[in-house]
């Protein structure tokens, strides 16, 4: 099992969010990149877009599959990681670090509390629903 940082929160759609003050940083989990395989394209939102918790905000595409990206929480996009468009391999190489996708302003910190801890996420992956 890969290392899932304890300071991050996780979703059932296999995204992580790291919160610093009122700013959240979003990426996909190691499990997600392993399931997708080699990532070749990503479509990210624009700075200023309003994300809605649980709603799709972009797509990520590997050689063999395409998957939607879902916002872990609601809020305004403050930065996007444009280098990922030209370096999609970062998703496979460093999903929990260099492959961050989006920074956003946290609108409601209550939404963060509802997400899974790293321990909950690992349990989720090991269950039938999460691990495939």
């Amino acid at each position, binding site marked *: 099992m890969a290392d899932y940082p304890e300071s991050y929160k996780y979703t059932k759609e296999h995204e992580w969010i790291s919160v610093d003050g009122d700013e959240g940083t979003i990426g996909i989990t190691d499990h997600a990149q392993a399931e997708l*395989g*080699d990532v*070749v*394209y990503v479509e990210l939102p624009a700075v200023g877009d309003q994300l809605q918790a649980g709603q799709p905000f972009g*797509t990520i*595409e590997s*050689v*063999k599959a*395409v998957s939607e990206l879902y916002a872990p929480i609601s809020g305004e996009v403050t930065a996007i990681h444009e280098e990922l*468009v030209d370096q999609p391999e970062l998703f*496979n190489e460093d999903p929990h670090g260099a492959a961050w996708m989006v920074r956003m302003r946290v609108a409601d910190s209550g939404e963060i509390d509802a997400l899974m801890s790293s321990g909950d996420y690992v349990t989720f992956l090991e269950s039938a629903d999460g691990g495939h």
Partner: protein
Amino acid sequence: MSDDPKRTPLNQWHRDHGAKMVDFGGWDMPIQFDGILAEHEAVRQRAGLFDVSHMGEVRIQGDDALAFIQHLTTNDAGGLELGQAQYTVMTNHDGGVIDDLLVYRLADTDYLLVINAATTPKDVAWIEKQAEDFEGAFEVRNESDEWAQLALQGPDAEIILSRIVALDLGSIGYYRAAFTDLDGVQVLVSRTGYTGEDGFEVYLPPSQAPGLADTILDVGASEGVVPVGLGARDTLRLEAGMLLYGNDMDESRSPVEANLRWLTKPDKGDFIGKDAIVADIEAGTAERLVGFELVDRGVPRHGYELYGADEQAIGEVTSGTFSPTLRKGIGLGYVPVEHTAVGGMLRVDIRGRKLEARVVKTPFYRRPKPGKQHRKIEE
């Protein structure tokens, strides 16, 4: 499918080598080992080892074996020399493609047909039915369970395999095969493949397959040979412009529509589906299979709709992928003939966005080394 998936003799070998397994046409097969891009590159640059034991084999033997094969398939097997292979299709009475296959002439009156895995039950039933209705001295035997098949593909395939088999591989030309002894059993070594690279396919008894796979990885370690799954097999064959049965052709399409007219030889005499195929050749078909590459960033995938300039769909993507070699989206699809001119523009509906694509000649990729003949889909 409710039945348990079928397993090749390398099933455990794949798991031991870290494969991610998937169901493919009722078979439990490796989709990837290290990753599709890495495996793809290994085959283009060095060598890759594929388990293709799921393919079906049908033996046809007897004085009238050739006459029956001529009746069954569209290409002309009459000129096959001993050890020569031929790419061909079987069609139904309407000229629709039942399967694409290889025909090997193993001995004077002894032929081996190699058919697709998912279509093996259908093909065997079809061949046996046609055999019942065909007068002559020949026997049809489904040998699918008696053959495993390993493919070693890539520029270093020959040097690696030459360390294992006693054959002079340099004397085996493209689409030629020879039997040789390997650890006391007869195996068939064939210079064929489904990747667009030079390489070999080795037909052997199932019990020998894991041992040969180990040996290939062992003696090819210095060249960097790796096991390759079905994911890279698909990206490799599509770059090489090779069709996948069930996607790029099926019983609703004639070989002429599928750009496989070069496999049809009406002058050889009668064969099943000939009248319909001749009519397609003479009158032309309304649609044809075309290759295209994305101008915009995006990956066309099977089932995505194709558009011309208008807002009405004109066809569907039959095969599509991200091309690891070209670093762009490529695909095949059937469109009306007026949209098939090379350089013409198409649009692919990728999840609601219509992205620009350009009609191109296939193959999308041609290996750099000149000289060898290619299996092509162009006429």
